[in-house]
């Protein structure tokens, strides 16, 4: 029995001990009255503490105003300490949980936690942007209500998670997501979402490249083979023979150009860093303007803009061919009567070589893929215009070997602007 309980009992006994002689010596009723009065006093005392405890238990606070009297003191103290410990523990746990959630938020992969019925329990901000979720309102929703693509719904229903699901996001254009389902805590699931847009794009580029090389080489080859067959089987007069041979040599030149461009591209890729010639830009711009005029035969207005300040340091042949390519493209894709503007501006921060045309322009969706090998916006047109489909790929490589960025801006029907931005350490003679 605890000390407090014994004290309470002793007090009751003491009352009885006082009441007993009074009852014996004075009168029986007097004894009872004293006993009752004593007990009543104790009752008042206990009630006061009881009321205090009740008040506190309704809204337990731990700022130290819970103090009992007499035998209640110990009980109050223990309750108070218990409450305080509990609160400290909860605060500690809360902090740990908050840290775990923060760690989840810091992940660059998207994470969604699902319960056994595939309802959303938690997701991090990456997943919110990847799947257009809003965790504040979407907690408890079945995930298929919001990620509704049939492939995903099917994947969840099949519940065969041995392989990840590759999903082309319908929320943000061209994002490719790889979704892994990892079971945890029994039948709950953790959904891990990786953004594989870049890998997917590289894969596609590689596949396209092989297919394109074969296709680009086979087209002229088929033509050649066809003519050869004709020449072998049909007796032709001299003129026709000459015409056929002419067309054949055209096709073989074409094949040679493609192979030459492929070799250029691979040599740029594997070559050591470019040596540092000094490229006289004022001269080069003038030469580019003359070349453009030659290519245009007076059908376009060619404007060269330069203040003659600053020259480039780098591999001259590469730069000349890259700039020449941009200018030739501009002339080629601008209808007669249009304008091609070649400009060079350098200052201490860097330099920009730009070619602006008033041509047919490029649909924005093609721009990111424009420098891929053999990528063609309009298959028919660019081959007629005599391109190999490798020009811009070579330009981009040559420029990036000089730490330059190729920036492409274009509005369909208005014109395009191709600009090469060079860093300050490539500029000399300012």
């Amino acid at each position, binding site marked *: 029995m605890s000390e407090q309980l014994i004290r309470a009992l002793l007090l009751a006994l003491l009352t009885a001990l006082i009441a007993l002689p009074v009852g014996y010596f004075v009168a029986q009723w007097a004894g009872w009255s004293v006993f009752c009065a004593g007990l009543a006093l104790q009752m008042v005392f206990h009630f006061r503490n009881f009321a205090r405890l009740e008040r506190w238990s309704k809204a337990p606070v731990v700022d130290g105003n819970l103090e009992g009297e007499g035998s209640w003191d110990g009980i109050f103290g223990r309750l108070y300490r218990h409450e305080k410990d509990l609160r400290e523990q909860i605060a500690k746990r809360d902090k740990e949980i908050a840290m775990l959630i923060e760690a989840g938020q810091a992940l660059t992969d998207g994470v969604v936690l699902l319960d056994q019925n595939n309802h959303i329990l938690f997701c991090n901000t990456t997943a919110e942007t990847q799947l*257009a979720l*809003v965790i504040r*309102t*979407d907690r*408890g*929703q*079945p995930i*298929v*209500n*919001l990620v*509704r*693509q*049939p492939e995903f*719904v099917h994947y969840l229903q099949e519940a065969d998670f041995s392989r990840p699901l590759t999903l082309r996001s*319908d*929320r943000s254009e061209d994002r490719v997501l790889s979704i892994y389902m990892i079971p945890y805590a029994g039948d709950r699931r953790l959904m891990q979402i990786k953004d594989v847009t870049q890998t997917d794009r590289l894969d596609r580029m590689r596949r396209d490249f092989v297919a394109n090389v074969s296709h680009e080489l086979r087209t002229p080859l088929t033509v050649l083979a066809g003519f050869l067959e004709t020449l072998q089987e049909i007796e032709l007069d001299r003129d026709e023979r000459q015409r056929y041979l002419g067309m054949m040599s055209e096709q073989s030149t074409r094949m040679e150009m493609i192979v030459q461009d492929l070799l250029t591209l691979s040599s740029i890729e594997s070559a050591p860093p470019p040596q540092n010639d000094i490229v006289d830009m004022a001269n080069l711009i003038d030469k580019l303007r003359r070349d453009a005029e030659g290519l245009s035969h007076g059908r376009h207005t060619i404007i060269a803009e330069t203040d003659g300040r600053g020259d480039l340091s780098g591999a001259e042949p590469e730069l000349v061919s890259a700039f020449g390519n941009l200018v030739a493209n501009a002339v080629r894709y601008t209808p007669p009567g249009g304008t091609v503007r070649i400009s060079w501006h350098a200052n201490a921060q860097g330099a920009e070589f730009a070619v602006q045309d008033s041509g047919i322009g490029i*649909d924005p*969706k093609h721009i990111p893929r424009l420098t891929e090998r053999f990528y063609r916006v309009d298959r028919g047109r660019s081959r007629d215009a005599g391109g190999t489909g490798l020009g811009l790929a070579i330009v981009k490589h040559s420029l990036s070997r000089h730490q330059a960025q190729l920036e492409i801006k274009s509005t*369909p029907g208005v014109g395009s602007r191709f600009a090469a931005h060079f860093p300050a350490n490539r500029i000399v003679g300012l």
Partner: protein
Amino acid sequence: MNESQHLSSQFDEDLGRLRTHVLQMGGMVETQISSAVDAYATGEIGSVKSIVDADHKVNELEKAIDDDCAHIIAKRQPAASDLRLVLGISKIVTDLERAGDEAKKIAKGVRRIYENGHVPSQFGIGVRHLAEAALIMVRQALDAFARLDTEQARSVIRADSEVDTEFKSIIRQLITHMMEDPRTITTSIDIITIARAIERIGDHAKNISEQVIYVVEGRDIRHTGKEGIK
């Protein structure tokens, strides 16, 4: 809505499942529309068949959901917001199914154009822009239904008039185009069919949003004009 506690949690589950089925159907229609738009933009008509095939599945789902609605009404006799949810759903699936039909029309139109060897390049961008706007409307209308978000539903309704304006301007351009060069009439008519289907998809998305508002607020704002969405 279904978050409110019913005596029978089975009922809650039934309603939840019904909603998920509607959204599953919505996902199929979204995919139909976006594949049709892709086919139009890229000229790869291989996907046309899968779009047409998906229509059967959408139709089956429509019937199944309608059946479920009838069952719930008969068995549970829902009241107030639950009743509105069931009624709203049976209207939403009708609109979804029709939007799917329009997607099918687009796909078939695209096939006609490209099989005849034409390229709708001149109107490619305008129509694609229109289609993307309509697709976003459908997506947002379904999101609004999933989240019972009337704010989003109202923004879809407002977006519909933009799609309508854009549709009219495309039609005007096409008419001028046809007058200038009568050889383009066949292709232009196909493009008009496609643009018309896209515009209808936008209307269906608007109807779905109106149902969402009805389900949540109990207000029927159909045919009330601009006042209704305030």
